[in-house]
């Protein structure tokens, strides 16, 4: 059951007004422009026991992603494909609004938006994850761990997921006489095959403004957020409106235009960081 949030912090009206008067000048409280994301830091290979990992900071939002690879049975309707699972945890240390317990609707929505953005465009080459058709495939577990929540968990999680996948190594294995697969995590490994890189761009509507990369406080005062997923060719590979307000019909086009520009910025930074091998 989904319930209207009733425990969110209240942002005083005067503070909302202060934000809006800044937007009117094309500015944000932290000095950036209304269509400008916060500074981004990407570190890969931050976890030794995960086959792929990344830590992303987007302003003061921090997300950690670990990719684990295990042997599993394929789905019956996809015997020639590996399995991709995305899971997100809003761990309680990340925000006063997070509670311990199983993932709530926000964490589930986050994981499912990231999952769809990867799956639909076939970002990961699942066909390269087959060990024995119909019997044994690699299962890719992508676990998104929100460490510090200052808004825009979608974009930070997608960047961290992409960086983690781009540096994921598939372990070596040997087959026993009875056909069991023994994974050798310490041995040689090969890189995971990526078909497409994907980023999401979150655009928030506040008063009459569409702003990029909202902070937590901006998310609280926003009417709605539109999360647009793009691949490197700027095709739209997913979308989700989230939040209580309605979107004016004409805002969709404008949001796509802003989204495309921001996607280019995200790709530039992501590719730079990956090329540096950080």
């Amino acid at each position, binding site marked *: 059951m989904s319930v209207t949030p009733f425990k969110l912090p209240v942002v005083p009206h005067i503070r909302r007004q202060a934000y809006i008067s800044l937007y009117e000048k094309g500015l944000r409280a932290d000095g950036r422009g209304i269509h400008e994301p916060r500074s981004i830091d990407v570190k890969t290979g931050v976890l030794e026991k995960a086959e792929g990992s990344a830590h992303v900071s987007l302003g003061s939002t921090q997300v950690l992603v670990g990719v684990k690879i295990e042997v599993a049975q394929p789905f019956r309707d996809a015997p020639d494909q590996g399995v991709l699972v995305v899971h997100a945890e809003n761990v309680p240390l990340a925000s006063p609004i997070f509670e311990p317990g199983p993932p709530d609707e926000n964490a589930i929505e986050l994981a499912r938006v990231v999952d769809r953005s990867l799956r639909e465009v076939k970002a990961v080459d699942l066909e390269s994850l087959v060990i024995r058709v119909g019997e044994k495939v690699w299962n890719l577990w992508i676990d998104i761990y929100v460490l510090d929540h200052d808004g825009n968990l979608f974009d930070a999680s997608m960047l961290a997921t992409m960086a983690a996948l781009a540096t994921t190594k598939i372990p070596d294995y040997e087959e026993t006489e009875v056909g069991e697969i023994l994974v050798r995590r310490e041995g040689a490994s090969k890189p995971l095959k990526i078909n497409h890189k994907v980023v999401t761009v979150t655009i928030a509507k506040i008063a009459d403004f569409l702003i990029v990369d909202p902070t937590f406080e901006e998310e609280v005062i926003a009417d709605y957020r539109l999360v647009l997923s793009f691949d490197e060719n700027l095709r739209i590979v997913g979308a989700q409106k989230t939040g209580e307000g309605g979107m004016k019909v004409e805002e969709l086009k404008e949001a796509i235009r802003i989204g*495309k520009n921001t996607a280019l910025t995200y790709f530039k930074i992501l590719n730079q960081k990956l090329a540096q091998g950080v």
Partner: protein
Amino acid sequence: MGHKAKVTLIDERGLRHDGRRFDELRPISMQIGVLANASGSALVEYGRTKVLAAVYGPREPSQKFMVLPDRAILRVRYHMAPFSTSERKNPAPSRREIELSKVIREALEDIVLSSEYPRTVIDIFIEVLQADGGTRVAGVTAASLALADAGVPMKGLVAGVAVGKVGGVLLLDVDEIEDSMGEADMPVAGAPDLGLVTLFQLNGVLSEDEVERGFSMAWNAIEKIVAMEKEVLRKKFEAAGEEV
């Protein structure tokens, strides 16, 4: 999920497997006031998709702390009956149902005049009885009718429809087989009288142009569906007026 038999989704005359044109809705039926206990209810069918919605409230919340001082809280549950799908669906709420309950709630939040009923809760229960594609958007339409049937004040009526891309062609109101074989599914819901899009999702790959064309197909259809909602509501209240 088993392997689906090969079906020709669009034939040489440009007709779909059920004879529809690319921009044609399935036959839609709407009934309101179908449940005695609920404050309002509706049964909506998009072709073989069958969705029942009930509204309870505004009423006191079962948990006293679950209130807002300036408005009613909405609680929405989208749920699929175990017999609604080809293979029995486990009745425990899935991650998909949890997400859809959220996006459907958010499709209604800006429409319901919840500030009229502070410190109360309005419950909206949606049960998918038969799933043949478009269940979430049929659920929004059913919820809109059930709210109106309950007499809950709203800024406008809401309806939903999904546009898919199948075999490179944009199709209105995709059913299950089209969705399962398609490249993209874009559910849209909103209140055309207010010009507000309240649910928007895209599952799949589309160009910017396809998103815009698909959206206007959906929006035109939503206007038609809302007109049907008004007709059904008008009939009920006219009949009630004659009885007095």
